């Protein structure tokens, strides 16, 4: 081994003290060459110093507050477990049945309400549905940009309003009618952690485009009709405080 070759492997020799055979020629060379013996001694000293430094830092770690903050962040960003196909089938079947039952009930109520209170049903509830391609628009009924309040005399709880939004067909007259302007747009799904105690009056439906993956994280299934696009249009139901409460896919 030449001095030049030794320079190339001197640190490897130091690092691999237990693997003698590949470096034996280097060690032999250093024994017969003062210059390379000095190099080897220096390299070993540095290696030992680095090991000492590693040992001195060995117990250092981040504070306990970091773990707590990360756990909180993890809970907020918790990834939704993908549902099994069988679970999805049952869920889909249940949703269809529930939706059908709600439609029948709403039609009955609407028919009954139409007989008794023909002017109380919403008249503007099919207005101004934006096209799916619009980046953002409000779905209005009555005042522009405002989500219509559930009319009297049948005040509904917020959960009922949201359920009505989810299942009522377009144009249906009902005392619960906060309609889905386009029936094919699907049902609103309440968002996790949404605060049902706040009223929806004064809120709005906002059309947005978002990543399909984000939508899926809300538990919504996204059709693969347009697999080339990663973006999809969705309606966000926001309350009067501006907090998103529910979401649906725009077909």
């Amino acid at each position, binding site marked *: 081994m030449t001095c030049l070759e030794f320079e190339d492997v001197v*640190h490897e020799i130091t690092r691999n003290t237990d693997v003698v055979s590949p470096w034996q020629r280097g060690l032999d060379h250093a024994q017969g060459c003062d210059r390379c013996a000095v190099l080897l001694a220096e390299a070993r000293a540095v290696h030992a110093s680095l090991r*000492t*430094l590693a040992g001195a830092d060995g117990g250092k770690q981040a504070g306990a507050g970091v773990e707590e903050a*990360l*756990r909180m962040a*993890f809970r907020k960003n918790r*990834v939704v477990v993908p549902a099994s196909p069988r679970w999805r089938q049952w869920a889909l079947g249940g949703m269809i049945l529930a939706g059908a039952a709600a439609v029948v009930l709403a039609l009955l109520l609407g028919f009954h309400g139409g007989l008794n209170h023909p002017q109380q049903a919403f008249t503007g509830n099919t207005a101004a549905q934006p096209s799916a391609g619009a980046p953002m628009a409000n779905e209005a009924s009555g005042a522009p940009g405002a989500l219509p309040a559930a009319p009297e005399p049948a005040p509904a709880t917020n959960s009922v309003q949201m359920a009505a939004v989810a299942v009522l067909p377009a144009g249906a007259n009902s005392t619960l009618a906060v309609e889905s302007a386009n029936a094919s747009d699907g049902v609103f799904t309440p968002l996790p952690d949404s605060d049902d105690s706040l009223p929806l009056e004064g809120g709005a439906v906002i059309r947005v485009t978002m990543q399909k993956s984000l939508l899926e994280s809300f538990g919504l299934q996204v059709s693969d009709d347009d697999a080339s696009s990663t973006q999809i249009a969705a309606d966000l139901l926001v309350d009067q405080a501006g907090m998103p409460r529910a979401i649906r896919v725009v077909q």
Partner: protein
Amino acid sequence: MIGPNELPDDELLRRMIAGDEDAFASLYRRRQGGLYRFALQMTGSTATAEDVTQEAFMTLIRDPKRFDADRGSVSAFLFGIARNHILRRMQVERAFVAMPEGHEEEFATSMKKRAGTHPGATENPAEILTRAETIDRVREAVLTLPATYREVVVLCDLHELSYEDVAAAIGCALGTVRSRLHRARNLLVSKLRTSAPNGANAAAELLTVINERAMRRAI
């Protein structure tokens, strides 16, 4: 039944993706120390090290599916994320971060504690001080290395990661890791010899020549 602490990293990550907080906590506890020390040894700042550790795991929480088992271990993946955060911070600060004040006292205290509690410790205060000084000199020498050399020294020599893992973490070829490490160690030898109380000697000069030659060959 196997507890989370006994599961391999990739299984913990899989469970974490499925929403298992305990799996995330186990992965964090297993890997946070290494990331924290990596950031500390790269920047010299405990505050930055803590921030980087948190940011690295936040990135994992937000986008865990970025991990690709074909490209390296979970550990290497995390070191890679931490490295990106460190480099970004260094770019922003545009300067090497000096060791914080009080570091030496903190270290001397820890050494005293270690000497007092370690069963085999028989060092006298002078030896402890000498060792503390040595460690400080090594730490400072590492911190003054250019970032590309510093990271390979920290990961290979201080954290004893395999060359493969280091290559995955810093996103370069195995041969690049080897050559950078070689040059980094030569630079370290030079720095340590010149910072020694007796000043530069023939070996340091020799290493400087070798290092320059290695640089020329690389170019």
